[in-house]
């Protein structure tokens, strides 16, 4: 574990050095994320000027959910999102060979090697909204304690689903389309499950459990009686990580290595 942590620190410092060399891009990435946060929150606010509730939730509950997803999005953008875009290039050009040769697990090497320094400070904005709306919904003390952990387990499920999907890039020549599909899967997770019809909800909970990413932790944080969702999330996370390890090893065997 210590070995991985030391390597990760090097990944982070290298990414920071690289990112700060292009200062305008660095600044624009931060601005882009803040615009995304604001437009998302304003959109929901505007809808609530016309209605009292959406499904079983009022304005503050839904905005707490949206803020929770923004916190996951911030963590995702900062720690892993860039690696997914590089992954398709690595496969197409054969530069994946060098990542596979490293003395760490290939999944770690591929998906955790790029750290987006530009968005680190946006965490203040994302978490600021989360804390504000957490306060508005009178989150109990225990929920406040569990909040960072819930963001992490939600993000963990999103991550494993995305890596499973991205592994399909081993079989196709141009992987950018898979990245767009991955982003659409993310979009589906950004809304609570009750907005979807019964059958869609089942698919998004039991087949591609993307709905659990935000809905399960937030339902639990708002009311501890809703623990079933959270159990599903934890169970699916274990199952999907186990599946991913098998799926990944199978995909590696199919890798044709364009550079060799």
């Amino acid at each position: 574990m210590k070995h991985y942590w030391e390597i990760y620190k090097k990944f982070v410092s290298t990414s920071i050095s690289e990112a700060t060399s292009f200062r305008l891009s660095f600044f624009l990435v931060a601005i882009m994320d803040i615009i995304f946060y604001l437009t998302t929150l304003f959109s929901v606010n505007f809808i609530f000027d016309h209605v009292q509730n959406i499904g079983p939730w009022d304005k503050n509950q839904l905005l707490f959910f949206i803020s929770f997803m923004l916190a996951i999005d911030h963590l995702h953008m900062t720690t892993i999102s860039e690696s997914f875009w590089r992954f398709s290039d690595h496969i197409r050009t054969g530069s994946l060979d060098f990542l596979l040769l490293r003395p760490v697990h290939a999944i770690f090497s591929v998906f955790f090697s790029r750290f987006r320094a530009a968005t680190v400070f946006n965490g203040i904005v994302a978490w600021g909204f989360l804390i504000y709306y957490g306060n508005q919904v009178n989150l109990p003390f225990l929920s406040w304690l569990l909040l960072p952990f819930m963001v992490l387990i939600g993000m963990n499920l999103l991550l494993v689903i995305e890596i499973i999907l991205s592994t399909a890039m081993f079989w196709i020549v141009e992987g950018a389309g898979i990245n767009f599909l991955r982003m659409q899967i993310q979009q589906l997770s950004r809304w609570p499950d009750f907005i979807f019809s019964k059958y869609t909800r089942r698919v998004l909970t039991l087949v591609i459990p993307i709905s659990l990413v935000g809905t399960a932790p937030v339902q639990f944080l708002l009311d501890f009686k809703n623990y079933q969702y959270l159990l599903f999330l934890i169970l699916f996370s274990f199952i999907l990580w186990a599946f991913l390890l098998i799926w990944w090893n199978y995909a590696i065997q199919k890798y044709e290595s364009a550079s060799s």
Partner: protein
Amino acid sequence: MISLKWIDKWWQTMKTAWSNYMTYRYNLFLQVVGPALVFFFIKYNLWNSIYDGDLELEIGGYTLSSMIQYHIWGFILTMLAKGHHAVDLGQEIRLGRISSYLIYPFNFWEFHAASFVAFQAYQFIVALISLAFFYYTGLLGPLNIEALALGILYAQFISIFWFILQFATGLMAFWLEETWILRVILEIMTAFLSGAFFPLEIYPQFIQNILQYTPFPYLTYYPIKIFMGEELSLWAPILTISFWMALGIILNYLLWKRGLKLYTAAGM
């Protein structure tokens, strides 16, 4: 000067671009149709959840049925008007591939404009298939052929504006390492302010008042209203967008001229 030879260059470039798009069909589908389809799917479910089955309820003057129709036309409009061309353009500048255009007897912008027309042809086919699907599912209601024709024409006009905007973001590759950031900022802002998220009537009145003085409503809200058969004066949108197009063309010209001075032809 327009000559047969010149037309042939455009035609051949369009054919090449079409072949390139068709080589990675699934990739193209996932990049172009996928996002718009999921965006529509979420909005469809969200508004169904908001209206909660109440067919009489009106929000911002829209019943559930008209709200869904608004978003269907929004989907069709996205297919007809919005390209994603700046991706290639920025990469070509950054990786030094534009060196070859500088010696071709065909301008850089002409090459990309011809590719854009080929891309529009693809989008047009997808839009027609989508339109047929929504029409036969009954979600779209009766079609007004006159409004449809006018809407398609207006959407093509808007697509030229989008091309000019995207061309400008692509040209920023002379100065920026990554131009996708600008493109995403532009898309988020435009989607939010143009009525792509929901009709402008849902926005607070003071924002609606401010938006009247910007080109944003003319990019999504107005064309959707045209498709929905509302009789609107087209002078204001056409003049406003034409003004912004002219500004965009001047901007692109200046960016290109200045950018070329900085160009280092990476890889040469």
